[in-house]
């Protein structure tokens, strides 16, 4: 009897102790089993390439080219209008972005800096890694410089006075726009020195990969940065370097620049790579990347015609009308109109496999309206854009742009006659008559106007028009501003300072000393 009790007691305690896992000293140090520690990364050339790939990855988020950046670039200009029911989008197009609601513009600001942070991680860590192939190391560093320059270009261009992170830190003070441009130029210069002309014919894990930044891309952006800071002399030299690389040419079909049919073509200097085939199918809006994230864009659903997507952005009537100003050599409409705009075309026009007039027959307002066609998956392959997933690459820098920017530099540096030839290259593709014959002997001012017209029709809905309006000083020019208002009523609510978006309140609140842009 006595022993029986002991037995029970002993069995109880032994079972209790044995079944409980003991926690000893080693167990008190727990490391995250879900992710690799940063200390074990940045050791090999593969780590380096994954690091720089991540810096590209930031181009795909909502704030960047998945949605917000194209909209922020397009919405304010006279080639587009927005009647979005979403206040943040509507206000972006009406110079009315609200300091209290940083949706869209704040996401852009946020993700440019996420991209810069990733590029800076490459620039801080990769120089320490030993490479067997020094050329690969240069290519990786060159891409990181290019991407940092590209994100910073966007930040300076849209938000004016912004921080300039060039190292790994927590707080970066706000700098002037001039300092920002200086850094952009420095980064593109370094990138141009380090990058190859092409990834074909090289050896390495990046061999043959289209879409990586090249020397041409870096030079093109370098020239653009010079142009935006009115350094026409340097811009001219740089654009000429691009042209002299001899690897770029215009594609014969204008619309090939806006579909999946002919991506990374001979006209493309740099484009954001979207694909329905890479990665998962989840929409990777932003935040901490997950394994299921796809690599697609939501631009198409945002800009889509009514009933095929959200119709947040529509082309302006000024654009539609201006396409009718000049006929081709064969007397036809400028083919860029049909590549850019859906409208009730006499003789019929197909959208998403349906006939425009038939589809909108019961909705007179839509029947008489115009919608975006550029960058839409509307050539018959898809029924609509409602799955949010567009695989069309966003062409950030086309050779046509280089040619027209070069022509502009020639005109600004006194060689107005020299500009004709480069403009005509772009006009020839769409069959427009020789400008030297139709408008010979233009003055520098007339040529400026002409370049404005040419750029307007060549690049609508590609995010360039408002940059042009601002850098040409049209907003400070009373006559030009009145003209813009007559073309696009959205300019009625423009006030001085609103050519830039507000610095997001979160940045204002948490980065001491930051000053808000004028008029906000």
């Amino acid at each position, binding site marked *: 009897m006595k022993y029986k009790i002991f037995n029970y007691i002993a069995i109880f305690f032994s079972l209790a102790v044995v079944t409980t896992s003991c926690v000893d000293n080693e167990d008190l140090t727990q490391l995250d089993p879900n992710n*690799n520690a940063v200390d074990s990364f940045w050791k090999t050339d593969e780590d380096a390439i994954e690091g720089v790939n991540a810096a590209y990855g930031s181009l795909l988020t909502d704030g960047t080219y998945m949605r917000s950046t194209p909209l922020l670039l397009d919405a304010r200009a006279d080639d587009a209008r927005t009647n979005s029911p979403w206040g943040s989008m509507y206000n972006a197009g009406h110079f009315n972005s609200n300091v209290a609601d940083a949706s869209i513009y704040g996401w852009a600001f946020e993700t440019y800096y996420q991209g810069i942070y990733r590029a800076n991680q490459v620039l801080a860590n990769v120089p320490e890694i030993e490479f067997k192939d020094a050329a690969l190391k240069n290519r990786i560093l060159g891409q990181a410089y290019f991407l940092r320059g590209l994100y910073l270009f966007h930040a300076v261009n849209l938000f004016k006075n912004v921080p300039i992170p060039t190292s790994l830190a927590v707080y970066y003070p706000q700098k002037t726009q001039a300092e920002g441009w200086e850094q952009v130029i420095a980064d593109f210069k370094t990138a141009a020195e380090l990058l190859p002309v092409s990834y074909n014919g090289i050896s390495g894990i990046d061999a043959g990969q289209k879409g990586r930044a090249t020397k041409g891309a870096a030079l093109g952006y370098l020239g653009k940065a010079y142009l935006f800071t009115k350094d026409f002399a340097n811009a001219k030299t740089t654009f000429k370097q691009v042209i002299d690389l001899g690897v770029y040419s215009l594609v014969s079909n204008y619309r090939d620049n806006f579909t999946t049919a002919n991506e990374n073509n001979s006209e493309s200097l740099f484009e954001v790579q979207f694909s329905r085939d890479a990665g998962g199918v989840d929409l990777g809006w932003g935040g901490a990347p997950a394994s299921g994230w796809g690599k697609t864009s939501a631009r198409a659903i945002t800009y889509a015609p009514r009933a095929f997507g959200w119709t947040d952005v529509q082309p302006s009537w000024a654009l539609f009308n201006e396409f009718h100003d000049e006929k081709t050599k064969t007397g036809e409409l400028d083919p860029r109109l049909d590549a850019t705009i859906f409208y009730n075309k006499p003789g019929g026009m197909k959208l998403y496999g349906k006939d425009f007039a038939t589809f909108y027959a019961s909705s007179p307002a839509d029947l008489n309206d115009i919608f975006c066609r550029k960058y839409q998956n509307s050539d018959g392959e898809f029924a609509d854009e409602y799955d949010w997933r567009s695989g069309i690459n966003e062409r950030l820098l086309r050779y046509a742009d280089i040619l027209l920017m070069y022509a502009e530099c020639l005109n600004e540096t006194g060689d107005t006659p020299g500009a004709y030839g480069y403009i005509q290259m772009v006009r020839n593709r769409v069959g427009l008559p020789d400008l030297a014959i139709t408008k010979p002997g233009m003055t520098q001012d007339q040529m400026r106007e002409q370049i404005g017209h040419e750029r307007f029709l060549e690049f609508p809905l590609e995010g360039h028009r408002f940059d042009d309006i601002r850098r040409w000083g049209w907003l400070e020019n009373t006559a030009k501003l009145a003209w813009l208002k007559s073309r696009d009523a959205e300019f009625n609510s423009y006030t001085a300072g609103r050519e830039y978006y507000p610095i997001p309140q979160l940045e204002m609140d948490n980065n001491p000393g930051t000053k808000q842009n004028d008029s906000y």
Partner: protein
Amino acid sequence: MITNQQLFLYCHFLLPKKEWLLAIVMLLFSVNQMSAQGKVISGVVTSAQDQLPLPGVNIMIKGTKTVAVTGFDGEYTIKASPNDILVFSFIGFQNKELTVGNQSKLDAILSEDTNKLNEVVVIGYGTQKKSDLTGSVSVVNMESAKKTVTYDAAKMLQGQVPGVTVQSSGEPGGFVNIKIRGITSFSNNNPLFVIDGIMVDAPYDFAPGEIESMQVLKDASSAAIYGVRGANGVVIITTKKGKAGKTEVKFKSIVGLQNVTKKWDVTDRLGYQKITSEAERNRDIRAGVPVSIAPGNDPTSPSYISNVNTDWQKEALQTGVVQNQALTFTGGAESIAYSFNVDYFKNTSYVKTPQDYERISTNLNLNGKKGKFKYGTKVAYTQSDKEIFNEYNAGQTVISDILNAVPTMPVYDANRLGGYGGTDNLTQRAISMNPIGYNNLITNNGKRNRFIGDIWGELEIVKGLKYKLDVSYDRTDWETRKFIPPSDLGWYYITTNDEASLDINNGNELRTFMNNLLTYEVTLGKHKIDALAGWIQEKRDHHDYWSRGVGYKPGEIAMLQYADSRNASEYKFTITGVSYISRLNYAYDDRYLIQANFRQDRTSLFSEKNNSANFYSFSGGWKISNEKFLHLPSWVSNIKLRGGYGTLGNNTIPQYFFASTVNSFAGYDFNNALAPGTTVVAALDPNVKWEKTTSKNIALELGFFDNDLQFTGEYFIKKSTDLLLGVPLPYSTGAFPANITTNAGDMQNKGFEFTASYSNHHHKFKYDISANLGTLKNEITKIGVNGNPIYGAVSKTEVGRSAGELFAWEAIGIFQNAAEVAASPKQTGAAPGDVKFRDVNGDGIITDADRTFQGVAIPKYGFGINFSASYSNFDFSMFWQGSGGNKVFNAMYRNLMAGQYGNHSTDELNYWTPTNTNTNIPAPVIGDPNGNSRDSNRFIQSGDYVRLQTMEMGFNIPLKDKFIQKARVYVNGQNLWTITKYTGYDPDFNSDGLISRGYDAGSFPNPRTVSLGVEVNF
């Protein structure tokens, strides 16, 4: 039978060396078998109050271990000698001693113990007599607390204890937030819950019905024993334990009906169309373009909507049903007594959607004693099933959807996929969610199974010295399935086949604790010593699995294999902890009391160099009324002064937050194939360490008239340093999320707490009145990086003010004409009819620098008043509760006053026009270019309220049948009446807690519940 030798082998084989030695030590102590001599005595024990027999009374021969227990009819038998003294003891009654003498039949009449201070209170890792407490421990009046019909024990604390605030909502199975003595932390302010000695983060899975007692440890002196987990206070819950004696069966059933008592005044079709059309007109006039009114709102358009006029509140709100049934069996013998409880709870939503919460829980407590060895076990199992409300965007609740839904949208529409109504881009231009359709179409179901097993044994090694080993195992398994089928809920809310998705999350978490406790208790003359030492190990293993399927055709089976594509991921973590605890209680002559606590904690949540911390506390009490030199009148029964000082910790940060990792999914694509990308995404602080709180408090306890009248007054100061906080980072840092968790602030909470109670049980009409009041003043003494304030939703937290104070612009009127706009400080986008804001800094332009503090978000006081009475077979109670001194930003009202495409408050109908100028409602304008609905005092309201939280009337049915001992029927009302100026649904709303404490985004209102209940004891 296992022999000694076998046992040795067994020990040797199974146990590590340390534990093996322990087993030997245990064997060395022998237990005396009891034997009793003498004649058989028998008798009946009855209650003095009602002369009814008392089952389960313990009868012990004084100075021996011979024990008997009364049976079914209060009868007992025991062998005793004539000189023996029988001690009758029963919880809630005074002990009675009777000498056996020559009698063979000895009846005893026990009277109720009216000295409330003899009550034994459960404290951390032990118990203490209430009168000996030196720390701040509040004992919850369970009888009153249980009148709140709820699924969550935390909700029962509302208003019952001073200094405890509860925030809850009417969502079935929603989480209840609770704070003790204000806020001490930015990361987690919910107290630690300890259920039957097992630490749990929240009492979420446990049925409140089986709770026997609840104690709230509020200060460092009482909570220091929980060290790193004690800073937010500790709630100790003890469930019903079995008592030796007659088997008792209790059945309880309550069924209640729930309604939302308040209705927002929102516009009907005509009001909506009028305001929205005006907003479009104003937009176009200001933009200088032809006026374009949405055709659906334009009476001149063929698309004009005149046949739909949905009152969404009427359509979406219904009567919810709450029911709770509980069956409890108790009984057993000394060697093993049991208490078994089965509890069923179900709550269907007051929203006309499938959402509900259903739970069945069982709890078995076994405890017993054999000689010097006491043992027990707890086995509890809970299964719950929650149909979860769906949010389209975070923060957009079904409640805000109901209010924002436009009246021109029909509830049902057979022409749309799924059968529910929606809005059209072309005709209505409004993006409006159909909450009934959305929540009916989506299946979002969460199941939780939780098993708790606890086993303990306590051995009295020598008299007064006890060793206790307590091992617990707490495992939760869950599965959440969310299926979004293809459907058309109108413009924007279209789910295509490609978007249709099934998300499954499975997971489990296992928490094990092993407590080794050594206690020693000794009384040497006037000296009483009670000491505790312990070693605690804790481990928490967590594993989550997610699977996602995307792409379903209408009607396709909602299983993964039917999806067009699938992906899966998982996440796991382990948290460990080791602690050493000790406590010393010393009492001299029942006059002077001293307590000291020490705890050392080590946890894997911090890096090795920061993972250890020490916590301690000292407290003392002086029972003034026991001093001989004082000659107190007889009606003064208790005067006690007590006070304490101590340190506490908080380690509630997510796991692994000190070690930076890389994210391997930040890829890109080249040549239409995935190009893997790896980068650091989040910013972490490698030096992050414990948050520490020191608390000081002093209290005076008074008791009069045999403690019928009691009063306690207490003052406390809590200072927290190295607060763990996700400090917002500027976007330019580049980190996601844009914050870094670090030790980023200090703050102080101080306040008074009072309780007063009076009870009179001396007559047939018995009654109790008690009231409590707690005040709180919170002040930030250090914040952020370089003192940079932290902004939340309409709030700013800075040094010298309380956390989360509302911070907004000040509206000072409406611009009446262009001249006034021109003459006022520059306000970009302003036009006549817009709100004029105050230029606080006088720089001539309205910017974000013109926001000012607009009120404290944390209630300055909270109180509860309880009254209960009984007369003959009738009983009645009511409980009032309230809080105030705080301001609330009514974000729901802001949405309804925005004058955009969503529905409007009827207040908006009085909008400004050139002819209606005597108003403070601005002209509606699509896009709101002036920011009329920006964060401003237009939407800030007082959060004060007083609420009749519960009222109950009961009747005991007189019974002749002895089989049924008690039968009571009652009517219970909850949330019956609220006095408040707040115009939102409910001033008691659930919000994110701290930085954004005063922001009501549209929480589920607490419903009014009227229930009918019955209690039967067999």
